[in-house]
């Protein structure tokens, strides 16, 4: 039986070589599908490992509270819930969490959008982060120049990201300069160090945002806080679990017994949360699924053509003693070779494209054995699924009829 397997592979390679052009064209369908899968997976793993590094940066004692029960955005819900629903987290929650034992740092995150203008420039739709002074330590922010917002600083002061500073004033040296957010005047008191982390668990690129105090943020929102996220750090890693448990208890009590929030720790935080990214991932998944389907149909089609062309050969093989199983194996191996060739091509091409895309991003695609296994697995499944019918058809052919057929 083992000998026969090697024979089947040799026969398949031989017959595929004689129809080289159409074999290669057929592999393309699978290649595109597998390439899409590889791109999605390698980039999403890349992004995850970037966020993972941020989370682990400080003792791994970080927890994140987000409104809504399903805060891990799946491919099925591309738009984050908090972008249109009113957040269920309130200022009371923050003070309650601050008072819990083991809570060392607590910072709310209120994300706003608005236009900003300096002397000559006006920028539309920039992100504004309204938060408390603890934000700098929960997210390990470094201030390059000046200071972070603190309890004693004036309400109309802001810390700006380096890129925002360049966009607004044409320079990174903008301490003391005045600009306006949504018509309110703010003075720059600090400039952040460039982080180059557009993808992070705060869902905002701090390089291009302005950070203002929570009080100022509330002013833009009819005086109420709209909190998208609470970052909280335990006094040490061992106590994180206790802290999360007690915070959950407290918040459920605050929210009339309703658990309308989620507390994430460790790896859960690292799931990609960017809207853009999830949208791209959905589109790519659809492309992958369609091209795998079309590619599979292509394989089936070309295999059926091959079976029809080789009817006499099939008849002869039967006459000299090939069993039905031997013929099924022979044609199945042929379609598997096509699909695995496509898988290999797609895997290589997928990484080539992923690296090209990542040249425009701030992270590189990840290499893991899981991605290779998935790409490989998909090709095997497609090859078997779509090769089975032609193979069975070949084996079911009547030997006498086949031999009589004019070639």
């Amino acid at each position, binding site marked *: *039986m083992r*000998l*026969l397997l*090697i*024979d089947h592979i*040799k026969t398949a390679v*031989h*017959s595929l070589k*004689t129809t080289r052009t159409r074999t290669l064209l057929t592999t393309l369908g699978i290649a595109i599908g597998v390439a899409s899968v590889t791109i999605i997976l390698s980039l999403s793993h890349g992004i995850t490992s970037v966020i993972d590094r941020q989370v682990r940066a400080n003792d791994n004692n970080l927890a994140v509270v987000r409104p809504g029960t399903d805060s891990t955005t799946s491919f099925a819900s591309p738009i984050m819930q908090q972008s249109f629903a009113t957040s269920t987290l309130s200022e009371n929650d923050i003070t309650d969490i601050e008072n819990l034992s083991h809570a060392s740092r607590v910072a709310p995150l209120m994300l706003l959008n608005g236009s900003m203008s300096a002397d000559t420039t006006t920028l539309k739709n920039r992100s504004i982060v309204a938060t408390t002074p603890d934000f700098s330590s929960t997210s390990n922010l470094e201030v390059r120049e000046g200071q972070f917002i603190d309890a004693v600083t004036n309400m109309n002061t802001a810390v700006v990201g380096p890129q925002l500073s360049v966009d607004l004033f044409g320079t990174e040296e903008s301490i003391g300069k005045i600009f306006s957010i949504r018509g309110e005047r703010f003075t720059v008191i600090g400039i952040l160090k460039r982080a180059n982390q557009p993808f992070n668990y705060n869902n905002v690129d701090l390089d291009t945002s302005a950070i203002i105090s929570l009080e100022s943020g509330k002013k833009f929102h009819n005086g109420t806080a709209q909190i998208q996220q609470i970052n909280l750090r335990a006094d040490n890693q061992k106590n994180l679990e206790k802290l999360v448990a007690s915070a959950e208890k407290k918040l459920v009590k605050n929210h009339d017994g309703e658990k309308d929030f989620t507390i994430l720790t460790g790896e859960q935080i690292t799931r990609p949360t960017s809207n853009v990214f999830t949208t791209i991932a959905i589109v790519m998944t659809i492309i992958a699924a369609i091209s795998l389907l079309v590619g599979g149909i292509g394989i089936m089609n070309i295999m059926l053509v091959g079976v029809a062309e080789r009817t*006499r*050969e099939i*008849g*002869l*093989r*039967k*006459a*000299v*003693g*090939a*069993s*039905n*199983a*031997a013929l099924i194996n022979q044609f199945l191996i042929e379609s598997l070779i096509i699909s695995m060739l496509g898988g290999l091509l797609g895997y290589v091409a997928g990484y080539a494209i992923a690296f090209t895309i990542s040249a425009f991003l701030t992270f590189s695609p990840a290499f893991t054995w899981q991605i290779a296994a998935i790409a490989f697995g998909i090709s095997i499944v497609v090859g078997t699924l779509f090769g089975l019918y032609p193979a069975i058809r070949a084996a079911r052919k009547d*030997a*006498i009829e086949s*031999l009589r057929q004019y070639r």
Partner: protein
Amino acid sequence: MPKHQISSPVIELHDLIKRYGIGDAENHALSGVDLTIEQGEFIAIMGPSGCGKTTLLNILGLLDQPSGGEYILDGTSVGSLSRTRQAHIRSQQIGIIFQSFNLIHRMNVLENVALPLTYKGVSHTKRLKMASEILKTFHLSEREYYMPWQLSGGQMQRVAIARALVNQPSIILADEPTGNLDSKSSHIIMEELSDLHKRGNTIVMVTHNPDLTTYASRVIHMLDGQIASDTKTPIVTEKKHEKVSLDSKRAKVSKKTTKKGRRK
């Protein structure tokens, strides 16, 4: 007296029936064939078109299933075995020669001859070695790496005979082996078959051509799905047939030498 002593029968058919169609359209291709074929016989089956001779050959080759009756090959009843078992028997005990040769065009001569051994489970190297040996007996050694389309009709059929023989079958079935060949090639093929017969092989041949029955040791006439006559003929002497050298190259060489001799 035949060269080979008659021993146990290779094939026994008891009341073999083959029906096609159902109801009004029912048609008996074979209606009760009883036949015993002994080891070492060379049987020619004759008869008009549609008398059932090809159907009989297909059933003997296990390519077709009988509708009734019993088929015993080498002492075992095979008519009702599973398809996989039948495929196994085909690869072990039966060699088939077709009118249209049926060589696989993608493969060279050697690989074509070695093909039946694949399904017998013989390793690749050993397979090619065995095929090469059998081709030697057909004087086709220097054609081993030719592709089938580079050969003449007669050579193709000789390759096909080599292929039928490579798995050392207990019976060789030939369906109009010379039907696609000119008379000269036909005689070469018939010489080969009669040579095989002399070496002790059992051959069943279906033919339209009465001339070819002279090679056979037994001639069966069929009519309307039944055996009409069954006559044993004495082995013909080789003188009866026009002698044609099997090795065309050797023939050329001998011509050349004679020419040279004349020049001297």
